[in-house]
């Protein structure tokens, strides 16, 4: 029972209260870069969720191996290599097995390697001393939080085209201001942390 409450707390934290985008600033680059249309935002969000879940599981196991060998200081290098090859592997797998999904994700798949949310979740799992199940849950729900954030943001951005604002704010600045206001809204969830 305690285990379930704990997992629920991790889920709520990762999706709402400690959202990867709005409170931890992880994964901002794809968040700003791939959020001009809702369809692509959904594709990116799903891909990131998938990779984050898998990467959490694999890096957790890799870390056990590193600790056993006394090579903890190699964490960063090992994790980024694992993530890069994982993304490459998923790319090849999708190309063979699910070509429709592969073409839908297009260029966003390789970009996930440099998404700091993925490396971030791997490092945070170790820092928070999560066990294997907690790590996987944190990875997947963190990805879901990213998906929620990027889809909401993309739907607002689609409407921004019709909005009037000073010319200097065109492009990134207005997107950042929008994201800031959304972060303000997400701060309302921080009360959930008590749980």
């Amino acid at each position, binding site marked *: 029972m305690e285990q379930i409450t704990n997992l629920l707390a991790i889920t709520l934290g990762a999706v709402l209260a400690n959202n990867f985008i709005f409170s931890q600033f992880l994964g*901002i*680059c794809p968040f700003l870069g791939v959020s001009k249309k809702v369809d692509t935002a959904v594709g990116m969000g799903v891909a990131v969720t998938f990779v984050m879940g898998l990467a959490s599981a694999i890096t957790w196991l890799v870390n056990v191996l590193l600790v056993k060998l006394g090579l903890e*200081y190699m964490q960063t290098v090992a994790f980024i290599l694992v993530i890069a090859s994982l993304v490459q592997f998923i790319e090849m797998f999708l190309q063979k097995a699910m070509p429709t999904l592969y073409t839908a994700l297009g260029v966003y798949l390789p970009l996930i390697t440099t998404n700091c949310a993925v490396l971030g979740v791997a*490092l945070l799992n170790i820092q928070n001393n999560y066990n294997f199940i907690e790590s996987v849950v944190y990875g997947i729900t963190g990805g879901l939080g990213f998906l929620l954030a990027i889809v909401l943001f993309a739907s607002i951005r689609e409407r921004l085209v019709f909005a009037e604002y000073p010319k200097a704010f065109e492009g*990134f*600045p207005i997107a950042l201001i929008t994201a800031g206001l959304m972060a303000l809204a997400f701060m309302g969830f921080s009360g959930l942390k008590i749980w």
Partner: protein
Amino acid sequence: MNLKKQFMDGLLYQNPVLVQVLGMCSTMAITTSFFNGLGMGVAVTVILTLSNVIISAIRKIVPDKIRIAMFIVVIAGFVTMVDLFLQAFVPALAESLGVFIPLIVVNCIILGRAEAFSYKNGVAASFFDGVFQGIGYTLVLLAMCIIRELLGAGTFGGGLLGPVNAAGTHMGIQIIPSQFPAGMLTLPVGGFLVLGCLIAAMQWALSKSKK
């Protein structure tokens, strides 16, 4: 090689944060106190310069197809060194920057400069590119820190100057009396808003200077 042009590009016309819009995560996440901004800026400048030099030196022997993987390995190596160095000699900084030091590996500024500049240019030019782009990044971080700290907490130089609190960190010099500042600006919201305004100001200034 054109030093003056590289210098101006790094600081203004091709500023990594304000014009190229790279490395946003760390820019917004850690700019809550002066000390953090300075530490992060210096760390990134050192890593960027070193990896630029190495990548430029090995650019002729690396096959085109695996260059990105090579870049990441080189960068990750330097990030690990800096991470361990900070943990050993500046533990306070290592603690307050936390996960964002290892995350320098995926900071797009470094990978971006490797791909866009040092993979195509000589060692000396790449060295200066690293230094100037690093300084440009550091200046933006410091500007963000100063604005957010001053408006959010009413202090200047947090972590470096001013009275020491119970935990042993410097609180910064109080400039605005503590009942006035908008604490929101030191929270994540402030990061988005301040950076948005800075980039807008930059776009405005660049469009003015073109006319």
